[in-house]
């Protein structure tokens, strides 16, 4: 140590001549050094010879875990003195006068400690006994610690404790224990709360694809919902919808309760529902609570649509009907626009003196679709016996007192309701299946509400899955059989669906009255071995009345086929001799909605599944809407906030999918001339056809569209020119025919952004439009369309005339007059097969404006890579372009987009739903009216307006005929 001191002193001669300030600095420095952490522990893992592989590294780490770590000084923390020096670059420094012995002692002490620990550490995986040399080992040492030398005894006694005891508090419990039912239930209960699980979540999550919370499409839904079943494809579910029964849990719909006087609530609805739908909301049936209305909800100004809402009023008895008395209304809202909708509701409720409350968790809502849903419901929902022995039933401890007292009060009412339920179900079933009744339409209208008191369906749960038939259900209730024979039963649709369900305190009790599954199943099993009266008594003791609401839904597309709005073609549709592939029947997608009290979800769900109701998810409802070619919320509602969000999410996922591929494997959308491959751009279709469209896209410095004409082969050139000329003539014609009309939307779309976009939703207008078009009265259809205020979209059903399957994001384009000439030639070709051989036009290949840039970018990247090797500090520049749009426009102008489409089983061909701008639809019609052949000859096979449709990754156009819908 002396040496060290000397050398250091020699190297740092104390500068006496230096000012005292420097000395001060040193003293301060020594003081500060005490406060600083003395050592910086760094593991010496990356020494030169230990840089091989991770496995080596692991072994190394394992070997070195007990070895003392290196102790180095932290240079940064020890450079503090530099701040005190006048010249920071000068790092010469005078030594402190005194040697910090105390510090050194501290460090030495630490070192000794570390060394001691290392030496003491019994290394590796050897037991205490194994560390001993062989001659010192004793056989009994494994039982008796005292056989070992003293220095090993402590270690040995530690090792002798069996591992199970030592890890009793540890984290790992064996799987078998973890999977025991109680443990699982506890865990699920823990997880259910924060994840937004529905009651049937566990059942679904084992059998379905569920929505992810990270998925942008379903992020705002606040529930995890089943998307589609894993066992079968949609075809099985389609069969269920068309011929059997599909069951869906739609409890994720939010229920908002409005309470206030009838006038106030009415006024409130006036402000959030558009004028043309007022009649359906303020219908007498709706106000009295007999019918659930479905309307579009709007924002405060009544011009922006938010979402469809189902409105259900609480029924009131006649004598209670005052204007002052409180009315309760339930609004069922889709989860996606829920926040938006509640904002509007809250704003309106404060001004109108109506109180709102969220009752989402209080109900389960199951949806039954398909012709057999009535019989399934009938066989599963066993009616509770309301008789003299009700008092004896009440003795069962689990029953709710309030509900039973309610039942006692309204005994007759309940009985009537039950009879009504059975008869209605019978009628619905017969309308579908019995030949004599087939011509009849049900008297049960869309949205009709029924209230029933039913028994716990678990009691009649079959051992095996059984298909319910009418015969078997009727045989259980002979009284019904008599009633059903008397056909002219007094239909009690005039009855109010009074239900204890509206009283929240009863509902609470009902939720609590659910017996646990194991209790019902064991008692049921006990009852199996007893006979006669004992058996019924035992089962009766389990009986639990559950009030449920049933809401009728007529077919998805039934509103388009209402007799009042029916056109010539629609009206003469013969149901008997219709083709299997002529589209879905009128009542496709009809069924019931079942509203249950909370906690009863699984108790009802599983019996339904056992009665052979096929379970479905969101995809099923989406597809069954598509089968009817009706828009589905939120996907086909691009003007709503939820729809826009959906398409944003769609854009994101599509972008991700596209750019996750290597460049050579991507579809080159520029060559295909697909400007919007990821999500439809509605702004674009409102732009006028000439000039402005290109300028709106050509933001970058890309070469113009016509460039390839010189460079490409002759064939392409001539084709291209041909199209170009025809296109220009078309546009000229169009501008001639509707010059003043085309100008208006262009100005508007410039000023207003996409939020001003509106969709024609007035059901009456749509119906008249359909009627006019099918009747061939195009002039009045055009005038009707022109009366709409632009920019407006019209929702259209897309049916390809012969081939082609629409899919989402496909473009609807305007055909040129040459296309029709070609169509006629192909159609009338004697060697061809008529309509079958009509192929659409083909989009020529386009010049890719990004091509040059891309090549440049790759070259630059190569250069940069080389440079990088030379100079590491070269700044990195990312030239990775991921454009959302492509600058190349197709030759036939885009006039609309398809929002959803697929192969449809009911048509045995492709079909879809899309949107088209009104002015484009008008110009389409105008052009096609002048074409005599199209209107007279070709209209027999495909009705105008006819447009072209092209998928995003194809150059083939297909002819499609469009039908407005809503």
């Amino acid at each position: 140590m002396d040496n060290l001191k000397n050398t250091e002193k020699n190297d740092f001669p104390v500068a006496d001549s230096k000012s005292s300030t420097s000395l001060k600095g040193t003293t301060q420095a020594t003081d500060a050094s005490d406060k600083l952490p003395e050592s910086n522990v760094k593991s010496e893992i990356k020494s030169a010879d230990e840089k091989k592989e991770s496995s080596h590294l692991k072994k190394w780490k394992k070997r070195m875990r007990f070895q003392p770590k290196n102790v180095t000084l932290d240079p940064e923390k020890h450079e503090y003195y530099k701040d005190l020096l006048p010249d920071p670059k000068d790092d010469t420094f005078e030594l402190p006068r005194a040697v910090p012995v105390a510090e050194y002692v501290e460090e030495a002490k630490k070192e000794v400690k570390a060394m001691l620990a290392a030496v003491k550490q019994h290394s590796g995986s050897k037991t205490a006994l194994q560390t001993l040399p062989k001659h010192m080992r004793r056989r009994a040492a494994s039982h008796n610690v005292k056989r070992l030398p003293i220095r090993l005894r402590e270690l040995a006694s530690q090792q002798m404790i069996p591992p199970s005891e030592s890890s009793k508090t540890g984290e790992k419990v064996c799987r078998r224990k973890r999977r025991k039912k109680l443990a699982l239930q506890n865990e699920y209960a823990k997880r259910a709360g924060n994840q937004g699980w529905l009651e049937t979540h566990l059942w679904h999550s084992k059998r379905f694809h569920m929505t992810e919370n990270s998925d942008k499409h379903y992020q705002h839904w606040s529930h995890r919902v089943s998307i589609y079943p894993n066992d079968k494809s949609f075809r099985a579910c389609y069969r269920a919808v068309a011929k059997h029964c599909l069951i869906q849990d739609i409890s994720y719909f939010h229920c908002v309760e409005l309470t206030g006087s009838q006038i106030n609530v009415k006024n409130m609805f006036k402000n959030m529902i558009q004028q043309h739908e007022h009649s359906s909301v303020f219908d007498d049936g709706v106000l009295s609570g007999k019918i659930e209305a479905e309307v579009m909800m709007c924002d405060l100004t009544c011009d922006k649509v938010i979402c469809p809402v189902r409105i259900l009023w609480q029924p009131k008895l006649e004598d209670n009907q005052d204007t002052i008395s409180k009315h309760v209304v339930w609004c069922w809202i889709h989860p996606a626009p829920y926040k938006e909708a509640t904002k509007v509701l809250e704003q309106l409720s404060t001004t109108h003196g109506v109180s709102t409350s969220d009752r989402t968790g209080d109900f389960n809502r199951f949806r039954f679709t398909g012709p057999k849903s009535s019989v399934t419901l009938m066989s599963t929902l066993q009616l509770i016996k309301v008789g003299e022995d009700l008092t004896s039933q009440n003795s069962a401890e689990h029953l709710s007192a309030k509900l039973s007292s309610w039942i006692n009060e309204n005994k007759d009412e309940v009985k009537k309701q039950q009879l009504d339920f059975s008869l209605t179900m019978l009628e619905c079933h017969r309308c579908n299946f019995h030949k004599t009744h087939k011509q009849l339409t049900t008297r049960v209208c869309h949205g009709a509400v029924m209230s029933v008191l039913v028994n716990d369906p678990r009691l009649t749960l079959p051992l095996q899955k059984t298909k319910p038939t009418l015969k078997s259900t009727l045989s259980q209730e002979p009284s019904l059989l008599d009633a059903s024979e008397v056909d002219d039963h007094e239909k009690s649709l005039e009855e109010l669906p009074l239900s204890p369900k509206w009283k929240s305190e009863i509902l609470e009790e009902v939720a609590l009255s659910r017996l646990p599954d194991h209790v019902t199943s064991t008692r049921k099993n006990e009852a199996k071995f007893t006979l006669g009266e004992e058996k019924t008594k035992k089962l009766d003791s389990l009986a639990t009345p559950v009030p449920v609401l049933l809401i009728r839904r007529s077919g998805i597309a039934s509103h388009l086929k209402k007799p009042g709005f029916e056109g010539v073609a629609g009206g003469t549709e013969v149901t008997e001799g219709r083709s299997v592939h002529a589209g879905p029947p009128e009542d496709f997608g009809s069924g019931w909605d079942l509203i249950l009290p909370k906690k009863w979800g699984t108790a009802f769900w599983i019996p339904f599944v056992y009665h052979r109701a096929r379970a479905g998810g969101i995809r099923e409802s989406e597809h069954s809407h598509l089968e009817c070619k009706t828009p589905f919320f939120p996907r086909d509602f691009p003007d709503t906030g939820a729809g826009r969000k959906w398409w944003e999410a769609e854009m994101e996922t599509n972008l991700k999918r596209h750019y996750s591929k290597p460049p050579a494997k991507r579809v080159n959308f520029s060559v295909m001339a697909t400007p919007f491959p990821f999500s439809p751009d509605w702004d674009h279709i409102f732009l006028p056809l000439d000039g402005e469209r290109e300028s709106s896209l050509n933001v970058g410095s890309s070469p113009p569209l016509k460039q390839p004409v010189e460079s490409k082969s002759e064939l392409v050139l001539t084709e291209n020119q041909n199209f170009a000329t025809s296109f220009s003539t078309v546009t000229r014609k169009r501008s001639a025919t509707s010059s003043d009309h085309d100008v208006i939307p262009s100005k508007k779309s410039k000023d207003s952004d996409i939020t001003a976009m509106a969709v024609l939703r007035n059901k009456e207008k749509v119906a008249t439009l359909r009627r006019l078009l099918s009747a061939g009265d195009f002039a009045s259809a055009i005038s009707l369309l022109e009366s709409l205020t632009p920019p407006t979209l019209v929702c259209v059903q897309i049916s390809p005339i012969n081939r082609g399957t629409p899919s989402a994001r496909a473009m609807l384009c305007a055909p040129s007059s040459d296309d029709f000439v070609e169509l006629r030639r192909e159609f009338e070709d004697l060697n061809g097969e008529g309509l079958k051989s009509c192929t659409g036009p083909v989009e020529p290949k386009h010049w890719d404006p990004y091509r040059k840039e891309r090549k440049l970018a790759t070259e630059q990247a190569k250069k940069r890579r080389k440079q990088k090797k030379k100079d590491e500090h070269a700044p990195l520049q990312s030239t990775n372009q991921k454009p959302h749009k492509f600058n190349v426009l197709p030759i036939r102008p885009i006039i609309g987009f398809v929002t959803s489409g697929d192969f449809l089983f009911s048509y045995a061909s492709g079909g879809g739903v899309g949107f088209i701008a009104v002015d484009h639809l008008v110009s389409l019609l105008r052009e096609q009216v002048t074409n005599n052949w199209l209107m007279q000859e070709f209209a027999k096979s495909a009705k105008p307006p006819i447009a072209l449709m092209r998928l995003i990754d194809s150059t083939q156009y297909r002819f499609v005929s469009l039908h407005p819908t809503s």
Partner: protein
Amino acid sequence: MVRLKHRYIALEVVMSKAFLKRNMKPKVITGAIRMHLNNLYGELGSASIYPNLSVRYLNAHTNTIILRVRRRFAEILLTVLPFVTATESTEFKNTDHKIFFRTLYVSGTIRSAQKFLIRNNPLVL
């Protein structure tokens, strides 16, 4: 299995500057040794020792180091150590700092080297 036998050498490092002390790292030590090894024993010597040479323990406060080297070449290393006078010039911007080692102890296991340090530390104090 053939067991590789090593020698563990406990050293005390004597450094010229506080600067060096702050920057004392395994690489500095091995670099200094390699430089002098190359001078004295040439390529063969450095090639036989350097790949196996590692700093097992280093303490900048107490200036102690434990080196590990193959037993076969331990003697060569031991002869080199007294000649080490400066760090490798490339380490600190082409300025070499004076340094030398005092060999304290040579042992066959790291355990005994550690035991030595336990014994030695109080002695120094």
